[in-house]
């Protein structure tokens, strides 16, 4: 099964303000986007497990105008506080790279 890292064109990890994280996964074309979006591989349940956040707090959007999937999760540590390890959240995407994309 291909991995997300093999299908996506880019993944933009960042803060949405100090209390949320955001991952914008973009694809080269509508075919790749629909393949991943339609596969149902990226679910709130999976994201909840990868980042140990409550499933009810995970939001996932398909965004066809940009061939993109957006994931928003809460931050467990407020950005820029002494316990933060990545102030702008730029390198928190690694667990997404190995999501398996089943063929549909």
């Amino acid at each position, binding site marked *: 099964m291909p991995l997300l890292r093999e299908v996506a064109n880019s993944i933009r990890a960042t803060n949405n303000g100090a209390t949320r994280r955001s991952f914008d996964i973009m694809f080269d074309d509508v075919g790749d986007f629909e393949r991943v979006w339609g596969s149902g591989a990226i679910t709130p349940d999976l994201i909840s497990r990868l980042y140990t956040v409550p499933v009810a707090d995970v939001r996932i959007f398909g965004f066809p105008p940009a061939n993109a999937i957006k994931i928003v999760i809460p931050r*467990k540590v407020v950005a820029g506080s002494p316990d933060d390890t990545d102030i702008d959240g730029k390198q928190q995407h690694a667990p997404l790279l190995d999501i398996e994309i089943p063929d549909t």
Partner: protein
Amino acid sequence: MSVGSIGAGFSYRAFQQGLSWNPHVVASDAGTSDHGPGPLGSGEVSSLGPMKRQLDTLITGARGIGAKFIIGSAGVAGGDRNLAKVTELVTDIARERDLRFRLATLHTDLDRDFLKQKLAAGKIRPFGAFPELTTAAIDESAAIVGMMGAEPFIKALDSGADVILGGRATDPAVFAGPPLRAGIPAGIAWHAARTMDKGVMMTVPGEATGSLGFIHFRPDHFIASSTKEGTYCTPRSVAAVTLYENDSPYRTVMPSGVIDTSECTYEDIGDGRVRVAGSKFEPAGKYTVKLEGARFAGYRAITFFAVRDPMIMPHLTEWLAQTRANAERNLHLQGIEKEEYTVRFHVYGINGVMGDDEPVKQPRSHELAILVDAIGTTQNAADEAAARHKALAGHTRFPGQLSHNNVSEPFRLGAVPLGPVYDWSVWHILELDEWDEWEKIFRVELVDL
């Protein structure tokens, strides 16, 4: 025409190209909270030299064609102290270039008594996972700002301002004032503002080109283009901006309402231009203001060392705990007590980037980098805490140890003092009772230069 954040740099030729298209406005969202609470708490602005050179180019260019020049979130944090430093740069530029213009500064530091009244009235709620606001948090804050919508910018334009330096503002608010004032429908004005608020981000191939985003307004749509030769806009590059740092790609919440892009069309009309239609704006019932406050949290000192001994790896957790205990005893002997400092080990090669979220539980590294991060009630306590934790790491033993010291460093590095540390103390939403209450909290100051 939109420049990415001031200080990040832009292409001079792209700027000149944009000026040749005769924009009514040159604007920049000059701030962010992404740098953390430090800029707001300290009131400092870094890299004033490059900022002044860029402001010089932008203001001289904009005023040369009679365009308005507008920035928001001046000095990164947009607090009154940050804004004052940027205002001084602009005043100097006007004098040095013999420019004459009406300057508006928009002040967004909020009165503490006003906030306490609103808190008592139940009008302030946390924004995301953040503690409830308290009067203590208000009192402890070094500064508290509110984020403006477009209204104060419009008020400044109504007052004849040529150059507007805004305090803290939502990113699109910096750009939405002029089109709203010109009678462009709110949906188009706001969506265009949101599209251009990251400057070069709406263009391809992207950041490295230093291009500027350009918007032409039409009665029922807007057209996005890129000013640098060889760069362009695509339906995707334009649409993707609404994804960025936003809780929904279809809805962007502003103080005065919501930008709704759910039914938008993005059409390539050739020459690197994109036509965007279908943008809507839902006015809010109440005006809401995002609040940001920063509080002093101590003084920071850091140091760094590396470990290459393979025999330490299985014992790392216990070894670091023993190092901590030994260092605390050593500091106590010097009269520095545990209550005066906290120390964090960021272990790169294990979980330095992701902390407890790190999915790789079995380390694969043959060497580790350890950043020692100390926060003290005094700079001296922080310096000593950082230095002693590193020194004791060298001397704390682990089972099977053969070497005589565990600490490697590329050159002698003592504790590096980093000065005051700030923490977010306020990250909340304030709901105003009356729509025009924004006029009481956001002050427009005018001066003719």
